[in-house]
């Protein structure tokens, strides 16, 4: 109880300090950045270093489709110089009223302080033909979980570098250096992750939501089914039965579940099929150990490899 009180007191003091620091002009102009998710915030931090102060909105362990547009976010956005969004309608259900209420013309779509990080990324699952809501929560502009491939991480970083350079041109060289460093660490990481996953190419898995398309493409996994019958639609008995049969037929050993979904159905499927449920964070901050974008892949690849070894999945 006391620790909670201390935390509360601490956060109040911090909020006060922040408010004071924003009230008085800082010694060196830092860019105030708000990012809709912790992944975007992490990449902004990688590029912006100490020349930016960045705050995320959605937490890594929170479903980014369903965020409550709390007024406390309005205050964060009111003073922002830059808003970085995941885009592809991931935030469509909660971000637009926050932008309007922030009363901040700098960060509205179309203004220089609004960056849709998806514009240069490789987007999968763009539906073609007729789209209806009978298909569930389908994203007409493609899969919004595109940050889950390191190559897209690099593209996002480049967009952020360009945007930060545009807004704070005095620090252009600094952002350039930071990008080069991030790019190098990401490339090293990619080698490491791909090596670790190399012997499991074509491994068939099942995931809860369609979050892992980019990740699977990057590391040669084959997602053959989803616990959700359709994106955003909760599991149904008929679909679950069908999935169990399919998993038995294909001898699937691994079910990936995002930390914000209920484990009841995945566990039941696992009991029936002998598969293992892995709660795998799709975002930075999804678990305590994942503090930045590179660690997200380190953690997930380790988790996956040890699960594959344990279950003998093929």
């Amino acid at each position, binding site marked *: 109880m006391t620790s909670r009180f201390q935390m509360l007191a601490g956060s109040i003091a911090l909020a006060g300090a922040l408010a004071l620091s924003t009230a008085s002009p800082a010694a060196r102009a830092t860019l105030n950045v708000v990012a809709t998710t912790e992944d975007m915030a992490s990449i902004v931090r990688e590029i912006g270093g100490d020349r930016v102060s960045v705050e995320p909105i959605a937490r890594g362990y*929170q479903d980014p489709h369903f965020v409550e547009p709390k007024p406390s976010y309005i205050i964060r956005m009111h003073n922002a110089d830059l808003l970085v969004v995941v885009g592809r309608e991931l935030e469509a259900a909660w971000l637009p009223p926050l932008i309007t209420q922030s009363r901040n013309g700098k960060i509205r779509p179309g203004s220089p302080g609004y960056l849709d990080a998806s514009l240069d990324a490789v987007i999968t699952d763009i539906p073609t033909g007729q789209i209806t809501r009978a298909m569930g929560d389908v994203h007409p502009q493609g899969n919004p979980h595109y940050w889950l491939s390191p190559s897209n991480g690099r593209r996002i970083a480049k967009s952020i570098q360009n945007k930060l350079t545009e807004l704070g041109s005095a620090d252009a060289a600094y952002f350039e250096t930071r990008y080069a460093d991030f790019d190098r660490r990401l490339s090293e990481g990619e080698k490491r992750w791909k090596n670790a996953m190399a012997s499991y190419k074509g491994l068939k898995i099942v995931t809860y939501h369609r979050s892992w398309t980019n990740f699977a493409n990057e590391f040669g996994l084959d997602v053959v089914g989803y616990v959700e019958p359709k994106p955003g639609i909760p599991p149904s008995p008929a679909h679950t039965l069908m999935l169990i049969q399919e998993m038995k037929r294909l001898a699937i050993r691994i079910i990936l579940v995002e930390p914000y979904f209920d484990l009841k159905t995945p566990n039941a499927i696992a009991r029936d099929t002998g598969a293992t449920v892995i709660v795998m964070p799709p975002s930075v901050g999804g678990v305590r150990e994942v503090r930045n974008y590179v660690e997200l892949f380190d953690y997930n690849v380790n988790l996956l490899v040890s699960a594959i070894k344990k279950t003998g999945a093929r």
Partner: protein
Amino acid sequence: MATANWRSRMVRAIACGSIALALPWVSAAQPPGAAAERSEAQALREELDRLRREFESVRDAYGTRLTALEAKLSALEPGPPGAAQPPPALPAEAAVPAGASGAGGPAGQLPVYGGTTALSKIFNPDIAVIGNFLGAVGENDVNPAPVFDMNEVEATFQAVVDPYARADFFLAFSPEGVEIEEGYLTFLSLPGGLLAKVGKFKQQFGKVNTLHPHQLSWVDSPIVIGNLLGGEEGLNDAGVSVSRLILNPWMFLEATGEVYRGSSGLFESHDRGDVSWLGRLRGYRDLTESTNVDFGTSLVWGRNDVGPDFATRVVGFDATLRYRPLRRAIYRRFMARSELFWSRREQEEGAVSAFGMYASSDYQFARRWFAGVRYDWSERAHDASLVDKGPSVLLTFWPSEFSQIRGQYRRVRYAEGVTANEALFQFLFSIGAHGAHIF
């Protein structure tokens, strides 16, 4: 457009190539100088047919492969969202019908209207239609509702007007006719951190008054809204609203000032100068990442229907406590809310002070299930000795975010001395691109 041209050129080239290859073969196959035998002609025709089929299948195969390649190309190319979609298949312009450009007809090309992918449609507003179907069984002699009622169909149109403003329209179609439920312009780029609205809209008085029927957690609206805010529709009028954030280190604080024409259910304007005024102060604070409190006080004043010298004033206080754990945000949430209203209405025989309130709570206990309770207690604005009161219990099922099925048991003890026991039902359903709601 360029890719489409390139593609049709490719298809044409393949076609010409195949015909060029096929022709010498066909002529070589003809027996020189021989009388045209029927069987040979037949064979030739069959051969031609086979070639045609082959050519068609080759063309189709190339067509599909080209489409796939184009899709890949556009996915690789960076561009604005939507750039990945194939370019409009329709020509931007059509040929002028013969003779049209003659006597005074338009010269040159005519634009094509009604193309399904016409670029102008990109600027269409987000359109949604929300149906609110109600049912009621049981007894109510004071305020009876029909057994089935397509109570309201709400059509919404929302879009950005220009770099400076956005517009929102909510048209309500009900058995009584069509009504502008709301229609307003919001100015986005005002100096001094101001947000201004002009038009007709729900007045920022408390919480429930600002919500549309489909946003409520109940089938009906609380009794106090009907008794003290001038009818179930609440305060809704044409006017101007200006609000501003009051930045401070402790909480979110917002002050709103509004001025209205002065003719809603509660007020009546006898003269152009008889406007009604509203002031509101709203505070919000996160207690933890999952729990927060939201509270506000509102005041509204205007002339009433008794005469130009008689005014009504209502003061409101509202408080909401919300709990929604972030890791389980789609499965669990709790909200407790109460609003208190004090009305002072000037009448011939003197001023009547009346009080009313409701208290409610909602609990989401599964991904698609919500349970709720509400208690109403309200005096009537014109006679404070008349009190309506009673409890409600509710159960709501959400097949998806776009539809809700709700049942409510309501027991109201009316001031007339009658008690109404009713079961109310509601089907809410929404199609189209409905804009996100304000918290």
